[in-house]
């Protein structure tokens, strides 16, 4: 049994704004095994990006972790001081590919310079050695090693994204969080990047959390899928089970809303209403206002994740 590279228990992270506390991450529990890819899906505003940042130990201000535990490779990181997080955890144990990261490359420095910076800072490598490693990783992501001498504006969107992925892998972290890594890319480039992720998964045994709202993309890489709604995980399990036997009404509706390329769909289903306000979420099951099967119990009590079958959990009173 592969060990758990990530264990999250009862994690809570709230944003403290002038209008109240936004419960972006509200009691999240899950594990990730080594070499596994967990897909995290949900609509905009469900808290998936917030969860990503929280796992890195850097919730975006005014966010704060209010409770729960995050164990990376057995080590608890909640409560660790900032300098320890910076020196030992981030980029070395867990790294992140941000949304729109390709636009975050600094235009005045060469690609190589930006890549070797963490190697020199964290690992104390010499410049030659670091550059060498950078070039190797560029090759790994399918780029010519000479790219180290290029500036970001000389590269295409796909190339920049590959650079970002290479940078995230440089320090050989246990776990990589990818937050919407293909959203800004064209469909062909997107397919190439996803292929790259598959390759890295196989060659490096990469453990990854892949965050996106697009369930089609998720299916292409994930071993397990977690569906988030309003700061909570409503369903989690093996990919096949989720896609073919979705238990939670929300998952079912999400899947029904995907336009299919090779199927004739008369009318696409959609979910009426909007995601709820996270400052004052609905009582009971947060999905109940939009759920066609909502019962009285759903309005009053918050359902917990229950094991429906092996490796398949859902939080719903119908089950």
């Amino acid at each position, binding site marked *: 049994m592969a060990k758990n590279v990530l264990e999250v228990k009862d994690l809570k992270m709230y944003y403290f704004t002038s209008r109240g506390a936004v419960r972006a991450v509200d009691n999240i529990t899950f594990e990730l095994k080594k070499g596994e890819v967990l897909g995290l899906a949900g609509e905009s505003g469900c808290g998936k990006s917030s969860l990503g940042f929280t796992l890195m130990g850097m919730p975006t201000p005014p966010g704060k972790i209010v409770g729960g535990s995050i164990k990376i490779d057995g080590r608890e990181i909640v409560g660790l001081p900032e300098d320890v997080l910076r020196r030992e955890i981030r980029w070395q144990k867990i790294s992140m590919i941000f949304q729109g990261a390709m636009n975050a490359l600094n235009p005045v420095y060469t690609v190589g310079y930006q890549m070797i910076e963490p190697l020199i800072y964290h690992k104390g490598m010499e410049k030659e050695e670091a550059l060498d490693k950078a070039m190797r990783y560029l090759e790994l992501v399918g780029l010519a090693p000479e790219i180290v001498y290029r500036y970001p504006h000389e590269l295409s969107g796909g190339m920049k994204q590959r650079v970002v992925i290479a940078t995230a892998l440089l320090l050989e972290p246990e776990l990589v969080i990818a937050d919407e890594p293909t959203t800004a890319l064209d469909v*062909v480039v997107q397919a190439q990047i996803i*292929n790259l992720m598959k390759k890295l998964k196989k060659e490096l045994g990469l453990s990854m959390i892949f965050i996106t*709202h697009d369930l089609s993309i998720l299916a292409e890489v994930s071993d397990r*899928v977690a569906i988030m709604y309003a700061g909570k995980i409503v369903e989690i399990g093996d990919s096949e089970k989720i896609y073919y036997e979705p238990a939670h009404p929300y998952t079912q509706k999400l899947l029904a809303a995907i336009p299919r390329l*090779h199927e*004739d*769909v008369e*009318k696409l289903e959609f979910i009426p209403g909007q995601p709820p306000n996270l400052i004052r979420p609905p009582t009971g099951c947060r999905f109940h206002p939009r759920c066609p099967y909502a019962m009285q119990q759903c309005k009053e009590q918050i359902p917990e994740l229950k094991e429906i079958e092996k490796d398949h959990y859902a939080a719903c009173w119908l089950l």
Partner: protein
Amino acid sequence: MAKAILKVENLKKYFPIKRGLIAGLRGEPHRFVRAVDGINFEVHKQEVFALVGESGCGKTTTGKLVMKLLEPTDGKIYLEGQDVTELRTQEEIKAYRRKVQMVFQDPFSSMNPRFRIYDVLEEPLLIHGIGETKAEREELIYKALEMVKIVPPEDYVGRHPHMLSGGQRQRVAIARALILNPTFIVADEPVSMLDVSIRAEILELMKELKEKMGVTYLYITHDLSTARYFADYIAVMYLGRIVEMGPAKVIIDNPIHPYTRALLAAVPEPIPERRNIIKEVPIKGEVPNAANIPPGCRFHPRCLYMERGLCDMKHPQLVEYEHNHWVECWLAGKI
């Protein structure tokens, strides 16, 4: 045969690349980005015509040319038989704008963040002098919001765009486009920035409104799955040319051009069993710079089937491969 609402003939748009003083003095020739390089198509009444392609293919530029936000370098555009490219005076252009409206990609930046929803919808009315009294205008605005299912309208008119969700904003954008009762709507990636679960809703709405109001759509997108669902007719663009076009289902189920095939192969599909299998996408290389269009068939450097001596030297012509299905490829039907 349904009448053509929009007809585009040999439309071209070249953007000059600024060159330095030295280059000018040396007499170097001007270089251009050939964003749209001679396209022809027709859109019929109440049809949804999808213009599909990756970024840089010229589809957005085409949309802007139809909207007269850009002036063509060459070619003609006809709306209901009238030559749009010949319109000169302010009144003529304004009258044209009333008939052709646009829905933009980014639901947030397409509305002035300081405006309330009421102001956003009132603007077109004020510009074109529709509704003389405030009460008249208010009624039109409420009706428009109801049509896009923003109800009750009173609750929303006082809000600012950032107080609405992405889907709601896009609906307001659609309402804004429809409030003038236009003939034609150019929808530039209207759902790309929305969650997948919301796209269905918006596209459903647009379909419904097409029936109700008799509008015709030019649907610009890079997403073939939504194009299949929403469009009647698809034209695939690459580097400024239409390389294949035909009825939506035909293009998706029987693509002829290698580029179309590559696009279709690249579309992610929710089939988790294949997750460890590398997806085959029959294309190589990167999209070239539109300032340096390859000679011959512009797709040839990326084509896996390209024939030396033919594809890299002579530009293929658009041929009718089968009824109403056009392809621009020397190897059409042979691969």
